[in-house]
């Protein structure tokens, strides 16, 4: 059983590293980093308490926002989805990603106190 699971994971991993473009792998790494940061903050808040609630909200929302924006960038730049985003070039997608991130972090820093 565990043999099958491990072989399936092995297969998934090799297929992922072979077929996924390197740029998307880069985004995935970024997403994992964000995910862990968010989970860490949430767990910390649960354990320690909500005291600087605005700071927690700002920190946590910054991870959620970053995750959503990065995921969108991944969807829009994925060659498999090129058919769906004919009017959006990857340059434009990246520019929008940068713009939205600047706006997001502006508000986060404003709110964090």
């Amino acid at each position, binding site marked *: 059983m565990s043999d099958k699971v491990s072989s399936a994971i092995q297969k998934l991993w090799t297929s992922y590293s072979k077929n996924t473009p390197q*740029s998307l792998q*880069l985004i995935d790494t970024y997403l994992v980093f964000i995910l862990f940061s968010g989970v860490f903050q949430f767990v910390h808040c649960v354990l320690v308490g909500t005291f*600087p609630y*605005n700071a927690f909200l700002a*920190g946590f929302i910054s991870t959620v926002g970053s995750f959503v924006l990065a995921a969108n960038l991944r969807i829009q730049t994925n060659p498999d989805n090129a058919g769906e985003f004919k009017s959006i070039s990857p340059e434009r997608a990246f520019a929008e990603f940068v713009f939205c991130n600047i706006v997001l*972090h502006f508000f986060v820093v404003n709110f964090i106190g």
Partner: protein
Amino acid sequence: MRCLLFIFAFVLAVGVFRVEPRSTTGNRVLVLLDKEDDKALYSKFFNSLEEREYQLTYKLPTDSTVDLFSYGERAYDHVINFAPKTKNYKDKVNPLSLLNFVNKGGNILLGASSELSETMRDFAREFDIDFDDIDTSVIDHFNYDISDDGKHTLINAKGITNNEAILTKNVIEGPPVLFRGIAHKVGTIPLLTKVLWAGETAYSYETKADQQVDQEPLVVGNKVMLVSALQARNNARVTFVGSTELFSDRFFDSPIQRTNSAESFPKSGNEDFAKDLTKWTFQEKGVLKVTSRHHHKENETEELELYRIKDNIIYTIEISEYANDHWQAFNGTDVQFEAIMLDPYIRKTLTPLPTSPEQQARKYKAHIQLPDVYGVFTFKVNYKRSGYSYIEDSSVVAIRPFRHNEYPRYISAAYPYYTGAASMIVGFLLFSAIWFFNKESSKIVKKKTS
């Protein structure tokens, strides 16, 4: 020219002789009597009222000219109803009209007797007061007065309220009050105050010769009410006295000595009691008013409509009491402040500040930290004590949350979140830089454009 001088003199005379009413609501009194001659029975009582600058108008309730209202306004400020026997009250003074009179802020002193008519019982029932049946009297075989005629209905009242808003101290501690009349039972409404009641050995029953007491009396013991006072929610006052004789000249001047008691007084307490009771009923005492109210942030003076949560504010209210014919500082120590949004979030006793004798109001003050909840709050002082007129003063303020830049900064507990947010920014910059200079990502572009 002469005419002008005359008018001038007239105006001057009116100005000089115009008397300020002692009562805070007015001095027009309507006196209802069973028959005109009854006036002589209470001459001392009525004279004392006239000395206190009341204008008394005597009428019979059966008189068709009597009207409590003129063009919808009260024609009188107070009513003394000493007509317990009369059955056929004209519509203008029937129980419904009297009730309207109270609703419009008029005060009523109702004197009853053993021959109380159904009309006045109906009126009393509106105030949760139940007079005993006709021909019954308060009987006490142990506390009757030595001048009693053998029926033991001329009694010395045993219980008297110690509420100094209604009666002065020397009446409470002075000679007892002589009473002969009907008993009543008071209900449970909190607007009622018991003023005078009978002793443990009293009961209420018919007084025919050879009367057998074979049924449970309506009231017994100290539940036998002799005088009760009610203050309606609009501060109008209605006083029920089970005996009109209590106000008579005969009772005023009568010496008083309880049977089996060596203590005797040359004069009963009736006159002073009647004086205090009418003073209270006609709004001459126990009247409170709010003269000013202010709230502001600590170290500021301006009254705001909008405060922040957890702001420290100072609330002050000035309360004045009418007593001894002038407004003076109120002496209560239990005035409370409430901050209410559906429920009271804060309830705090206000501190009375010392006053000098010439000040007409006392300042009450409290330091308050507003709750950690935002919304529209009502700051309220809701002061209701029996004997005193009710105070309900409220002001509406909004309480807002912290602005984004009012939160505390650089606190150690927030460092993990600062780190988190900073790591997001660094991550974003790093990712963008790598993406920007990455050949692979530009390859996608080519692939897509080709």
